[in-house]
């Protein structure tokens, strides 16, 4: 395993995904350093979510490889991902709507245990999963709403629940797909602070897809810019802000939208 410093935890080697004639992701080679906050940005349709789907095993690449700590995980079944330390959130809120908040998170903790087929046991009796779920809920500030049915939560709380579900699985790598999507703007800073805290407290690697440029510029160590399925540029926030082709492809467009 070729060790570079700092250690690469997630690597894609020339991954490509075709949908019919469309090259949604086209030969992307990405290195994500362990412990980094690595953002992937790009205009709509640049292939960010597809790249996420390839890394998290939701889709199989047409060609290329995905590696976790140097090990090829391309084509590994979806349900193995959580066990290998990869947790993923979704752009569109994706919880278990009829279950309580607690149950949503408890299930994620239970998934990593060995009691999953014990149909003669009471689920509530497995205290360690309940405790893990309580910790995750406390971390995202949803502990007071543990008994609420997930489907009736306000949108901002559902986004927090998404995070808690991932945290309960205790992943090393968190793939967060627009965690602030659809949130009221006054709620955004606290969620961003929460993500930063999760990363430092748990020493986790976070890969973030985000539209909100100020968030990305503030919290990222490294930014990869995608454009039309390809990697356009990569660097730290200052480098990206100064990059002319990025400004042309993305930042300019972004500022136009907001002016």
């Amino acid at each position, binding site marked *: 395993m070729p060790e570079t410093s700092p250690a690469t935890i997630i690597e894609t080697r020339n991954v490509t995904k075709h949908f019919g004639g469309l090259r949604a992701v086209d030969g992307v080679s990405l290195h994500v350093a362990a412990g980094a906050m690595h953002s992937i940005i790009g205009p709509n349709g640049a292939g960010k979510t597809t790249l996420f789907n390839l890394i998290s095993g939701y889709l199989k690449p047409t060609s290329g490889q995905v590696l976790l700590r140097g090990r090829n995980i391309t084509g590994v079944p979806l349900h193995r991902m959580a066990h290998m330390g990869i947790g993923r959130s979704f752009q569109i809120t994706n919880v278990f709507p009829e279950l309580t908040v607690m*149950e949503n998170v408890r*299930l*994620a903790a239970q*998934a990593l245990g060995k009691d999953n087929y014990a*149909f003669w046991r009471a689920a509530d009796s497995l205290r360690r999963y309940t405790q893990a779920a309580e910790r995750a809920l406390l971390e995202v500030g949803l502990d007071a709403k543990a008994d609420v049915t997930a489907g009736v939560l306000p949108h901002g709380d559902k986004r927090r629940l998404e995070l808690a579900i991932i945290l309960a699985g205790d992943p090393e790598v968190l793939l967060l797909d627009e965690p602030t999507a659809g949130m009221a703007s006054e709620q955004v800073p606290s969620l961003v602070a929460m993500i930063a805290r999760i990363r430092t407290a748990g020493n986790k690697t976070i890969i973030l897809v985000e539209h909100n440029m100020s968030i990305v510029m503030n919290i990222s160590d490294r930014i990869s810019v995608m454009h039309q399925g390809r990697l356009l540029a990569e660097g730290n926030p200052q480098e990206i802000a100064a990059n002319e082709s990025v400004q042309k492809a993305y930042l300019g467009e972004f500022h136009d939208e907001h002016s």
Partner: protein
Amino acid sequence: MTTSTKPIHGAQTRRTARNWLGPIVVLLLLAFPFILSLLSGQPVDTGTPKFWQGMLIQVFILAVFAMSYDLLMGYTGILSFGHAMFFGAGAYATGILLKHSGWGLAAVLLAVVGVAIVQSVLIGVVSLRVRGVYLAMATLAFAQMFFILAQATDLRAITGAEDGLHGIPVPDWLNPTDQRLTFYFVALLFMVIMYLIARRVVDSPPGRVMVAIRENEARAQMIGYNTFGYKLMAVTLSGVMAALAGFMNALWNLNATPDVLSVETTINALLMTIIGGVGTLIGPMLGAGVYQLLGYWLNATFGPRWPLIIGVIYILLVLFVPYGIVGTWQLRRNDMRAGWARLIRPLRTGLEADTPGATKK
């Protein structure tokens, strides 16, 4: 903290009430033959008491069958149109073994469980590769295979072909005609045990995963569950439970005919589950009671046209009680209480004093 204490407290009171309700119902059902005997003035093992014991025995058996269907449809979200194949196979296995093998009842019971496990694992492995309507069609195809197999004339010596198996030998102590009261208690015990097992299953770790699969299968996979395994487990548990209901059905009727394997048998399980409330366990049991007793009453009142009327009732139920008896109660319980309080408030205040509210009335 105060916000979370209150609902938990409420839940505990509710749970205590529910814990009392179950044993009370069981006690009432235990006393039922004797109460009826007192009321009718007939001995407990004859006439009216005996007839109604028979009616309830059928309810108990159907309740277990409906509950097994609820495990699959209500808790795991798997729509099967072939559930009769487990019920029917259980009935046929019981009949064939008791008639031809000379085994004792306990050995037959174990064999029925074994057959059901093999059957449901094989059928599950094949049909769970598809989802939704396609899965329903696959299970229907398997069930029709068993339905046709049971009627095959080549197997007449074993299955009795289209006539089915008749005169299944049952131990004397459990004869449904001569020992009706014993059979009644056995059937009641059977239902209670099956309910406790099903309740434990749905409250167990894999039971919660089953609900997660119903809710959002892709997310269940993403958080680390091999959902195929859990679905297979649900099919197997449900298949064994249905087969045991078939076992009891064969003992009760002393026969196993092709109609236990028919689509109608599956539809009945579906109806009972929907009438009672999907995903509630208690609901399908109530649904079995409603179905059986209503069917009997309509048949007695309207004669052979009764299926037409039960069809109309079914449509009305779906329109006005869309979540079934238990499901609608769980959803509306608070509204109903509030509505009731609103309704009687003017009356109460009117009784307590001559208030403006009362004079307005």
